[in-house]
């Protein structure tokens, strides 16, 4: 993917009119031409983080659809509120058919999910993840949300494991190291990485800096740091300087590929 695009070079030069030196670290072209191109090298058996919180906001919906269309299998998905929108409308505007991570279980492509919220309160109708789990086709690993995000953060921050008070005295604690600090018992939890992260931001600059909007951050910034390859779906790609330096939500260093949505895409 490390092509030196003339377009990218120009925008770098334009942003620095008095400095014509081209620095090789900058003009790596991270921009993919299509969603299918951006996910084309994801192999069967990959572990894939999917950003957002749950619901339409912050969800890399176009990347998810491209991944599904790629047709690969044996995937491990790492999400948060994972597959409840389709049957409950969670986090989606009323006038649209919700799309969620359950699609990879409906298609039989995913065999495992690690997340905090795999199923809705209701079983009528059954969600795709619960259906796959009941039929023995999916392993569901349910992690407290704060532990899940901290495991992801830790992976990106070079922390192999950490202690947390959450989950002590519950089924989550089974088989884990316990240790007391200041008279309170904690659990040892390990960092969680993945082969790929599919994330969503409002804007990227050509270098790969990201800007988020509203509540669309959620799991996106941490997942961007934690996966070996981070692929970002954005509404808009802007030139260097097009994102206020004070508003950079994810550093370009973490970002490997950027894909821009079509203007006026009906999906949120």
């Amino acid at each position, binding site marked *: 993917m490390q092509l030196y695009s003339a377009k990218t070079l120009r925008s770098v030069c334009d942003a620095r009119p008095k400095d014509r030196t081209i620095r090789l670290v900058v003009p790596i072209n991270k921009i993919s031409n299509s969603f299918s191109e951006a996910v084309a090298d994801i192999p069967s058996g990959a572990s894939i983080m999917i950003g957002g919180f749950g619901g339409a906001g912050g969800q890399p919906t176009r990347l998810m659809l491209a991944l599904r269309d790629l047709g690969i299998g044996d995937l491990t998905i790492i999400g948060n509120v994972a597959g409840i929108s389709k049957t409950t409308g969670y986090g989606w505007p009323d006038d649209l058919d919700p799309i969620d991570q359950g699609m990879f279980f409906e298609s039989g492509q995913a065999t495992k999910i690690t997340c905090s919220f795999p199923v809705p309160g209701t079983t009528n109708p059954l969600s795709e993840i619960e259906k796959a789990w009941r039929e023995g086709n999916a392993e569901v690993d349910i992690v407290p949300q704060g532990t899940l995000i*901290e495991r992801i953060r830790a992976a990106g921050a070079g922390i192999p494991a950490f202690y947390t008070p959450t989950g002590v005295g519950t089924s989550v604690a089974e088989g884990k190291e316990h240790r007391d600090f200041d008279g309170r018992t904690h659990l040892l939890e390990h960092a969680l990485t993945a082969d790929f992260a599919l994330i969503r931001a409002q804007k990227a600059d050509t270098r790969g800096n990201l800007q988020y909007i509203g509540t669309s951050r959620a799991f996106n910034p941490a997942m961007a740091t934690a996966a070996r390859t981070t692929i970002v779906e954005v509404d808009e790609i802007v030139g260097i300087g097009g994102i206020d330096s004070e508003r950079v939500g994810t550093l370009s260093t973490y970002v490997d590929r950027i894909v821009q949505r079509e203007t006026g895409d009906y999906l949120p």
Partner: protein
Amino acid sequence: MSSKPEITGNEPAPRLNRAAIAKRAARDLVDGSTVNLGIGIPAMCADFLPDGVELLYHAENGILGFKELSAPGEGDPNLMDAGGKFPKLVPGMAFFDSVESFSLIRGGHIDVTVLGALQVSRSGDLANWVVPKRGIGSIGGAMDLAANAKKVVIAMEHNAHGDIAKIVEECTFPLTAPGCVDEIITDIAVIEIDRENGLMVLREVAPGWTFDDVQARTEARLEAADKIDQMA
């Protein structure tokens, strides 16, 4: 399953409806505190804040300082609360990611969380994420909130399916957190938990109900407060 309490005869008086439970729970929320409301009855507390009380609502997905949960916004997917609803954009609101959101929770910065429950035990154990018969459930932020908020209030219906006890001696459902619940507000009672001594103290009853009426619908042994007030 927990045992059915021995109930003889009809109910002594109507139970409070869900809104009235929320209203009673809202009365205890202190002005200026940082509060996380769970889905269902807890979220309805926002509609019944006493005059002059302003709270900083936290939602796990990354908002602090939003307004009434039940006053819908414009349906902007990028302005969602943790229940999947769309609140209004208001001045002073802050957005942040899940790392920050759970630092706020785990770090003990949430003053009060109001949650629902499947079971609460006499020692304050909470079970609210999975029904064993179903075998799969969702933890979400519940374990972090229950284990780490400064105060945990449960707002729920007193019994399941009319007569099954939810307030029990020992939880039979998988726990969300042990020894975490401070207070339970139901459609017939307000119960305070003295966790140090493993006591449940009945402080208030719904209009027309007595200590004995509530005890008959509660598996856990209750103590009577010096003075039992009427819920209002």
